[in-house]
């Protein structure tokens, strides 16, 4: 460009419209998700000690390394800076037991990044939630290592909740409804029970979820329909037979339910994008979760419910509002 005051022989940049862009980038979406996960991680550290932080760091480092390696091998643009692999690694750590051996974590994250996402073309193009693909592979292959639970030992303040020795859903499955009658709901809500690092403290996960909603990173459709449908489904069975089926609120406050609704079931690319599609997706997740919890082979159904509904996503994207100006064809 020559001296700007004359514009005599300017070299003009030509580009297509529009000529302004929103400041939101993929990194913005990803780092905000990361920020939203911090309360859950802090709660994990508070209840299970610094082993949780160690596991989270291992998972995040593995995810970034695998992503970089994968993109290097495939000769693609390096996109590790956008933070998506950090989110993947942290989410994987948060749904695991703090006692998980490090090699299991590394293997699981590698499967998630490479088989769950990389081979489909990277972020947003994978059909199934990559975190859950990695987790499911490990859950089936290394069932024993994935099911070692420790008691919560709060670093300060609270007394350790000693009512149950297994995560609440396992107690329900093994010992029936009566075993949980003494468990205060407050312990469930703040996470003073055994369980995965990031899922025990429902309060912390809710804070993160509300942050995501407030920053408009996600919309309300999936979390609300997920939680509401699970609760209503549970309510029906609780009313039918409270001896067999626990209070639906206990189901809502235990296991992965809230983390799944806000973080796993809103994973970009694997969920529908239309509003009606998202609501059906959320209802499907909630109902299938409860079905697996009641009668399924796994104790917590959130992961498989989301994976099943992921498979329906292309269909659910066909459920859409009427397009502007569409008229019925007249023969």
């Amino acid at each position: 460009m020559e001296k700007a005051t004359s514009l005599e022989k300017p070299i003009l940049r030509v580009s297509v419209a529009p000529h302004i862009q929103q400041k939101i980038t993929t990194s913005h979406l990803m780092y905000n998700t990361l920020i939203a996960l911090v309360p859950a991680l802090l709660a994990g550290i508070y209840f299970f000690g610094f082993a949780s932080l160690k596991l989270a760091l291992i998972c995040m480092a593995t995810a970034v390394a695998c992503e970089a390696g994968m993109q290097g091998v495939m000769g693609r643009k390096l996109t590790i800076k956008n933070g998506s692999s950090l989110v993947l690694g942290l989410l994987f750590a948060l749904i695991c037991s703090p006692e998980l051996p490090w090699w299991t974590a590394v293997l699981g994250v590698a499967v998630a990044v490479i088989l769950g996402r990389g081979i489909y073309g990277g972020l947003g193009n994978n059909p199934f939630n990559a975190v859950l693909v990695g987790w499911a592979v490990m859950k089936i292959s290394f069932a024993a290592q994935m099911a070692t639970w420790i008691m919560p030992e709060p670093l300060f303040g609270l007394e350790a909740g000693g009512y149950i020795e297994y995560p609440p859903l396992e107690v329900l499955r093994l010992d029936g409804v009566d075993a949980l009658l003494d468990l205060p709901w407050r312990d469930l809500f703040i996470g003073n029970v055994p369980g995965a690092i990031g899922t025990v403290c429902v309060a912390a996960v809710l804070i993160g979820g509300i942050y995501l909603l407030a920053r408009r990173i996600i919309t309300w459709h999936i979390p609300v329909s997920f939680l509401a449908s699970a609760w209503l489904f549970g309510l029906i069975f609780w009313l039918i037979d409270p001896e067999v089926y626990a209070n639906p609120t206990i189901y809502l406050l235990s296991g992965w339910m809230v983390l799944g609704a806000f973080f796993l079931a809103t994973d970009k690319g694997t969920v529908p994008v239309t509003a009606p599609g998202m609501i059906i997706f959320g209802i499907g997740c909630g109902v299938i979760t409860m079905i697996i919890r009641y009668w399924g082979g796994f104790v917590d159904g959130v992961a498989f419910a989301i994976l099943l509904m992921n498979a329906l996503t292309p269909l659910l994207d066909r459920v859409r509002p009427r397009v502007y100006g569409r008229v019925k064809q007249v023969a």
Partner: protein
Amino acid sequence: MGFKTSFRGVSLPPQKVSNPAIEDAPLPKKVVLPLGQSENRVCKPVVEVGEHVKTGQLIGQSDDFLVAPVHSSVSGTVTEIRPWSDLSGNKMPSVIVESDGNDSWLEEIRAHEDFSDKESAQLLPDVKAAGVVETGPPSMPLHAKFTKPEPSKEFQFLVGIPQSKPVDTVIINGIDAEPGMAAKGAVLTKYSSEIADGIRILQKLIGSAQMVLAVGSNGSVSSPLSGELAGLGVQVFQGKDKYPLGLNPILIKCVTGREIPLPDGTEQDIGVAVVDAVTLVHLVEAVRDLKPQVDKIVSVSGAGITAVKNYKVRLGTLVQDLVEQLAGLQGDPVKVIAGGAMTGVALFSTDIPVTKEIDALIFQTAAEAKSFSPDACINCGLCVRHCPSRLLPNELSKYCEFSMFEEARDKYLLHCIECGICAYVCPEKRPMLHLMRYGKRELSLA
């Protein structure tokens, strides 16, 4: 009439041209007047090289109903008649007039003709003769809005019913749709008597139609005008500050609740006519003053120029000359945009004349100028959340990117109103609007 105000869209950064004044740009030394609006709609020149023309003199006309006549915008000598590049690089036959600096007008142009006892049939030829063109898109001569061409004979024989629907609602669009545009709001305050006169003329032209004046959230109707509007039975629609309310399909939906039947329909099919507030002023000048359209109000803005104002620019003034006359470049303008920031065209050269279709010029510095990336879509759904046509732009952009145009058409690509919101919100900065236009173009050629 009850208005709706819910539609999907985005809040854009505020307008940069806040000054409602309209200044006359200096008289250019040379004007380049293209003889048509598109490649296949071109006038024949009625002047010869070397001939002396006066301001407002007819220099090109055509028998085609959809071609507006062209008038000289300065007085001077015709030096050349040759092809000249238009906005998109097409060569358009153009008449080049060197100004003599006197700006002497044709004698028959006189102010304030009394149009009150004229009938609609007498008014329309005046509108056509003045060559008033709607800014668009699509830009078309104003008279074509009020007279629908006869349906083709064979089709009429088959169905036996007339196809044209009478216009029952006229919307005067006073909403500056995009950042960088400010002319309509300025016109509403500066030319309020013309707006009232324009509404009277429209009432004559169209007969019994409901008139609605749409103004933006920052645009206001001054008190003498609002009184007159009430007397004329005009409703005022106060829009909120959300893009793309100023675009015709969405504005029509909000005001009347009707949708233009896409892909082939026009606003006439649903009995609506939208008239730009700036065009309305030209309409008044054409009918009341018998003055052809020789100038255009252009909003000049951007960090690359100091003179952020609305200018009344003579048609055919080259952007280069305009910049030199305003002498206010600053920073390093690297991108010059004709039109608004959302849908405007980036100029490849400053030797482009100001035409009836251009309503804004934006000079962007390197810091402002955006670019797009070739990265893959991450299916985040932001575009779907904001699409005012309720399309799935993520899917459409992928179809167009990989040349699956038929599939894109089945997914309603042709219903896209090209507002540009998908590209504005895209976190991967994909050239969404470009891909849509590309797909539409390929389909139109198939």
